[in-house]
């Protein structure tokens, strides 16, 4: 369980998050949505232990601020919004770093399994800097997966905290990455994902958290959150929500062509 209560996080002099409370369950994908600057990334960074905060954040019972980095690393992996590698490490070396951060370092075969999962087996020995942006993003997802390879360890569920995991990918790879997150949650792990694309989110999320100006605007199932008036008010533009014939919801932005 990821439990956040009365969370305040300051950036500079102002509080970006203002008294936010939230619970995310393992075995489910929790998608965090909201306009730019609404505090989505700040929330994930605080939950991953990268930012000082007031209030409480506990992951599987561990208060984040009081848990040493190595223990957190065994419990959860974090995919940052942007990733760059300073030296020409190979893709497999980078994924190997993730593996060594977790509790499965004694199973080096996980590196190739994680690369196979994101479809980068052929590029394992290429310097990561020589890959395209989308390939690099998938390589970093493989690194993060290798860190918490088994979604559930002897100590309980493990977590993936991912910030815009599909941002730089084409539509096919977006769906592949969503499938990876889905499988992780279905196997008992916890997934918290910051997303921008409302339609993809509607298909991925078990729980949706809609944020605005550091507060939670709406929280619940996609059906509860994905409502035209709620989305339109939160994003400040006209959005229409419909139900797809097969399954799920879709969002249609109402573009008013400038006169």
């Amino acid at each position, binding site marked *: 369980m990821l439990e956040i209560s009365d969370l305040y996080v300051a950036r500079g002099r102002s509080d970006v998050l203002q008294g936010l409370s939230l619970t995310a369950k393992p075995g489910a994908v929790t998608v965090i949505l909201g306009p730019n600057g609404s505090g989505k990334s700040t929330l994930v960074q605080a939950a991953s232990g*990268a930012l000082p905060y007031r209030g409480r954040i506990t992951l599987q019972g561990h208060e984040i601020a009081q848990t*040493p*980095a190595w223990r957190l690393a065994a419990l959860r992996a*974090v995919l*940052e919004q942007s990733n760059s590698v300073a030296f*020409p*490490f*190979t893709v497999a070396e980078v994924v*190997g770093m993730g593996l060594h*951060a977790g509790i499965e370092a004694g199973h080096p075969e996980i590196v190739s399994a994680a690369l196979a999962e994101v479809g980068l087996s052929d590029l394992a020995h290429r310097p990561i800097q020589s890959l395209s942006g989308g390939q690099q993003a998938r390589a970093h997802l493989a690194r993060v997966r290798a860190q918490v390879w088994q979604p559930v360890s002897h100590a309980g569920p493990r977590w993936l905290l991912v910030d815009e995991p599909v941002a730089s990918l084409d539509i096919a790879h977006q769906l592949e990455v969503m499938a990876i997150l889905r499988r992780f949650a279905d196997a008992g792990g916890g997934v918290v994902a910051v997303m921008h694309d409302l339609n993809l989110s509607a298909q991925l999320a078990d729980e949706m958290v809609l944020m605005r100006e550091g507060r939670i605007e709406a929280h619940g199932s996609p059906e509860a959150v994905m409502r035209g008036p709620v989305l339109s008010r939160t994003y400040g533009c006209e959005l229409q929500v419909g139900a797809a014939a097969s399954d799920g919801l879709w969002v249609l932005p109402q573009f008013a062509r400038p006169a």
Partner: protein
Amino acid sequence: MAMTSLALPDAMRRPCPPLRLGLIALLVIAAALSLGTGAAGVSLPQVLGQWLTGEEISTRDRVVLLDIRLPRLVMGLMVGAALAVAGAVMQGLFRNPLADPGIIGVGAGAGLGAVAMIVLSGFLPAAIAAFFGTWLVPVAAFGGAWTATLLLYRVASRGGQVSIATLLLAGIALAALAGALTGILTYLADDTQLRDLTFWGMGSLAGASDMKLLVGGLLIGPALILIPRLARGLNALALGEATAAHMGHDIERLKHRAVIGVAALAGAAVAMVGGIGFVGIVVPHLLRIAGGPDHKTLLVDAALLGAALLVLADLIARLVVAPAELPIGIVTAILGAPIFLWILIRRQGLGGV
């Protein structure tokens, strides 16, 4: 099995043992050449032959080999390893292959200390001057390096957090300040002191004494032994501070240890031999090309190649204008500066630094 090659992240890059063996061979050759070459014309094979067959070795040969060439060789090995490893660690810390101890102001601080001592030593109480003797300049250089590092740390750290960007910029400011103060001292210097200043600044392995080796070794030895433990952390740091922290590394502790290690290595090296540039940039760069960027191998290989190259540079410094000798800093600059420029040009091709 195809899996096996993927299975070992540490061993899977271009295989490393041959590189390591080659470096060791280079080091042995460099050391033998250094011992066997010199103005006195003592031949190493001849003396070794005499020693093996039990013949008596002349006192002159013994003195030249053991009291002149050997200390110089040991100092070259120590300083070369220290400079190269300090550079590799600094580059890992700054996530930039062009970083160097000179950049965070350690070299400038050491230089200011040395120059201050050369120019101002006349004002010191005689007891202190007598106690330190010829050690005054190196001791002051070392003090300058440490002071610079501590000062930088005070400026760049807030509440236990060290900002690498601030550290880098503060280093530039500090280097400028130290350079200005050095300039003022240069104005105060008389002609003899000016000559000393110039030669200290260009670096030399001449004047290796047991005392120098002992004090330098006490700093460099432990640092060289402990620094490879930072390898995994420095690897993770290549992905950025936040990501390295997410992967379980205690970033503040890693940075503190790296900075202290660099100060010990670079401070001791500058104190022992003066200004020797480019070893810290060129050696790690060549090794990243030959063996990959993994610090687990890089830090050890850098010590080997740095030691070998500095001994070879010293050999060149002794041979080109024999029986006189060039300051070794000139040799490393002539060899190293073009390589540095080459690195810059190559990096521009990859989208700039």
